């Protein structure tokens, strides 16, 4: 069979429709039913070079359920949020469980004007061991992927470029 080549990715541009991001950042309710597990919030601020916050940047997340399952039809495991004018995003979700040799984690995908391709990163709740966290080189960057807990709120700031830059995956 003749292989096709994947389409070239391109930026979302500055005008990603507001209505596309509305109401999709709460993963704890699906079809009016509450999902099982510990409810947490994930908040963070997304910045570019020089620490400037980014407005209307789109973040999509993908995670396991409380039992570590990625295929639970009662918990979709997927959400989308947009940053506000201060660069801040918020997800309400269930704390993911341990899955298949993986530490609890949340997969992030970022889309924005000026990002020619999607950027992917991973948020962890504590330091490893985890095969994805352990793959990050140099080691000193791994701490950038570990979120900070305060009550039921986990903070995960993302810096696209410059000092304190977040490691991203290009696979």
């Amino acid at each position, binding site marked *: 069979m003749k292989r096709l080549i994947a389409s070239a990715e*391109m930026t979302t541009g500055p005008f990603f429709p507001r209505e*596309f991001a509305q109401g999709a950042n709460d993963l704890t309710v699906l079809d009016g039913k509450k999902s099982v597990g510990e409810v947490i919030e994930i908040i963070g601020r997304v910045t570019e070079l020089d620490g400037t916050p980014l407005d209307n940047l789109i973040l999509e997340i993908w995670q396991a359920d409380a039992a570590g399952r*990625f295929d639970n039809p009662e918990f979709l495991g997927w959400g989308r949020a947009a940053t506000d004018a201060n660069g801040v995003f918020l997800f309400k979700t269930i704390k993911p469980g341990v899955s*298949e040799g993986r530490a609890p984690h949340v997969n992030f995908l970022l889309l924005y004007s*000026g990002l*020619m*391709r999607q950027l992917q990163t991973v948020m962890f709740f504590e330091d490893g061991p985890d095969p994805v966290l352990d793959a990050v080189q140099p080691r000193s960057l791994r701490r950038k992927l570990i979120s900070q807990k305060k009550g039921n709120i986990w903070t995960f700031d993302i810096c696209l470029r410059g000092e304190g830059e977040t490691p991203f995956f290009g696979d």
Partner: protein
Amino acid sequence: MAYQVVPRDPHTQSDGVVPGYAQTARRWPSQPLQRRPHGAAELGAPRGLERRLPLLRGDLAGRGAKRALGQLIHLRARVVDEDGAPLAGALVEVWHCNAAGKYIHANDSHDAPPDPNFYGAARMLTGDSGLVELRTIKPGAYPVPDAGGWWRPPHVHFSVWGRVWLARLVTQMFFPGEPLNESDAILNAVRDPEARARCIARLAPTAQGPANALAYEYQLVVRGRKAAPGMP
């Protein structure tokens, strides 16, 4: 059969930092991108995503007599993977500006009129053959602010979910024969001319199309393929 996602061919993809597009140098990471092993997270995907992202319109060109201004077009976009296998039931988002080059977005400061009969965004599911069809109008060109005379050619934004998390695709579709295609910083950030050509839709023969609209055909290829038999 197992599914796999292999690294992108950089030649067929845009560079991260693009000359003439100033924001890219403030946003694309300066460090090389990391590699990771692929497991249940990377090769899994939410099923029934439309339960989180409800379907939204299948027609952007207005209702009844209240038609959007501009050239009526009929888009036929097919979603396939690298094996050429169509994706049935895949979610597709489409958005673009109106015929005058104005988006429905508070941040668009372009001095062009809004069109009250134009709807700028749709969300649909592909059918069994991987196809979505959308009636809309051909978007206009518009100038990029503070970019030295850079005008975006007419284009349509697509956002598509593939079979796995790593197969997410967000891209733009261009129209054939547009002179601004030659100078667009975004389209020309793809260095391989064949890959660039695949970003341009094909005008379907007018004798076969709808009587009142031009039909354009486009193919979206999401990442991912079946693993060859015998591979671990």
